């Protein structure tokens, strides 16, 4: 690894470098960044984000994000901890509405309409833009009920005495759905003999895969994943990676990851966020990792900071 002028600096100083750079670059940085973040791709944009700003109280967490996310592909979001990746992801299905301190400005267009319009239907939106959270959050219910929770709430699955009497029992379809989702999430083999057990009894990694399966079961069009593999062992991780690649044939996947190799392996395009909530560069994954435009991005992916 070639050492440049940062050679003599101590670790702590290195960490503060981007801040210093940022202030030194001044006005010009804005222009350059716009250039680097204008990503041209073939095909349709599933989501297009423009002039998105997020504040937590006085804290400006995301600054002027413009980004078009192409459909049926995998978009990776990388960046140092605390740079706003999760915040950004939560903007895409309006989960930030749950955070009282958060204030969101700007547009996120889904199918040509702004999801932040007053007449947006949050339920429909979240049904079609699914999400897997950074830390696993299974419901305190059985594994089966965790999977069928979404379809049940959307009225796609109906079981129980009344449904049976009325001849609408979907028990079989439920079983098939549970099996398919769990297999997709590479969890089936481990839990198929205890689908009735409480999901809180699973290990952390299993819980995370359960949450992925739960998301897939509602059959969304876009899947937002916040570090889906952070709690998994290498085998499960590679299964999840395969799954993501497979999903991109049909779905639009946006995935946050801290693992550069993973981003390289699975994504078609990569967006790099840096401390302070800026989107610094957004391009084909290959381009980002082989020949980034921005010095800061190069520093980040070669491990100089972050």
């Amino acid at each position, binding site marked *: 690894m070639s050492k440049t002028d940062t050679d003599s600096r101590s670790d702590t100083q290195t960490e503060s470098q981007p801040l210093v750079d940022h202030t030194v670059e001044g006005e010009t940085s804005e222009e350059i960044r716009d250039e680097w973040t204008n990503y041209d791709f073939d095909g349709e944009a599933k989501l297009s984000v423009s002039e998105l700003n997020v504040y937590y109280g006085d804290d400006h967490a995301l600054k002027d994000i413009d980004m078009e996310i192409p459909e049926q592909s995998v978009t990776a979001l990388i960046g140092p901890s605390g740079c706003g990746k999760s915040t950004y992801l939560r903007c895409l299905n309006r989960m930030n509405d749950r955070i009282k301190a958060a204030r969101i400005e700007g547009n996120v267009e889904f199918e040509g309409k702004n999801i932040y319009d007053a007449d947006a239907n949050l339920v429909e939106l979240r*049904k079609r833009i*699914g999400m897997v959270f950074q830390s696993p*959050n299974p419901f305190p219910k059985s594994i089966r009920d965790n999977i069928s929770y979404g379809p049940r709430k959307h009225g796609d699955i109906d079981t129980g005495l009344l449904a049976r009497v009325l001849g609408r029992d979907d028990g079989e379809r439920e079983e098939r759905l549970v099996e398919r989702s769990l297999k997709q999430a590479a969890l089936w083999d481990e839990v198929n003999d205890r689908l009735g057990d409480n999901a809180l009894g699973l290990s952390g990694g299993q819980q995370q895969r359960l949450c992925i399966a739960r998301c897939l079961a*509602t059959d969304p069009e876009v899947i937002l994943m916040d570090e889906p593999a952070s709690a998994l062992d290498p085998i499960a991780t590679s299964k999840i990676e395969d799954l993501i690649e497979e999903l991109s044939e049909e779905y639009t996947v946006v995935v946050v990851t801290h693992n550069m190799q993973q981003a390289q392996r699975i994504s078609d395009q990569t967006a790099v966020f840096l401390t302070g909530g800026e989107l610094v560069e957004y391009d084909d994954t290959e381009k980002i990792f082989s020949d980034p435009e921005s010095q800061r991005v190069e520093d980040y992916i070669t491990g100089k900071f972050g």
Partner: protein
Amino acid sequence: MSQRTGISNVFDERLGDSTAFTAVAAVGALSLLATFVLFVVESDLASVALVVFVAAAAYGWLFHQAETAWGLSVLTTLVGIVVLGLILVFLFLEAEKAFETAGLSLLLRSAVPVWSPSQGIYGLQVAIHGTIVTTVIATLIAGPLGVAGALFISEIAPERVGELVKPAIEMLAGIPSIVYGFIGFAILNRYLFYELQLNTQGSLFLAGGVIGLMALPTVVSVAEDAITSVPESMKSGSLALGATDWQTMKGITLPAAFSGVSAAIILGIGRAVGETMAATVILGNVAGEFPNPIFDVFASTATLTSLIASQYGDAAETQLSALFVAGVVLFVIVMFLSLVSQLIERRMRRQLEGDS
């Protein structure tokens, strides 16, 4: 935390005066014990022992504050246990006479009248029936409405509104029961009497309704605590799947808070069972005969509490003792409910901690 129990190392440093202090501490402890014993045996000397204790404590406070503070805090901790023990002992002691005279017919008598002090008949069944009826009515009101109120405050209302409603509900709890009773007595009793052409002023129905209103705030605040303690991540998980807020409450939040919410309802039941003045003022407090038929909620009998409050004044010895039996029954019911709700709450805490 574990480091904070050491008092012995302090002793080591001051070995010199520790013997004098130990003596004073012993005198203090003994004199307090003596105060208690003398008070129980109804001796005037209790106050002397108390003075000795105060003197010993004052000496300790001035010269060995740390140790004295520790000692006093131990003593104060014991007060609660001692009081509860005394309540238990004296309730049973006073109830004994009635048990000797009336035996199990206190609770199991089948002939009417079941309660007639002038004939020396002391059975509590009618009052127990009244307590059950009013408590059921109160629970039917306070349970669902209380849980709905808790959901409103913690999940549905905008923050501002919630901050307004919460203290208002506490205020509702603050209105003294005698005031509720007075309104029931002066306004609602009369209203129902004329509107429904009742035979008597006052009815179990009305008493139950008023008691329900009084138990409502307890249910709201305890259930609200339970609901807020459900982790946000669970709720987000449900919402992110496209469930509505209401589906999330029904499907995730309430089931996860189930133990806490049931503890809230149990506490509400406990309040309703023990509520005295509203029932006393609203009801006719006759405990001789069951309503006819037994489910006639417009009858005006008595509850255990109202029986005690309305009859202790001119009660002769056995009657008073029978009223103490009513107290024992109340005490046992409420202790049981309190224990159950504590168990449930502990389970809930373990559940929610266990999964994080």
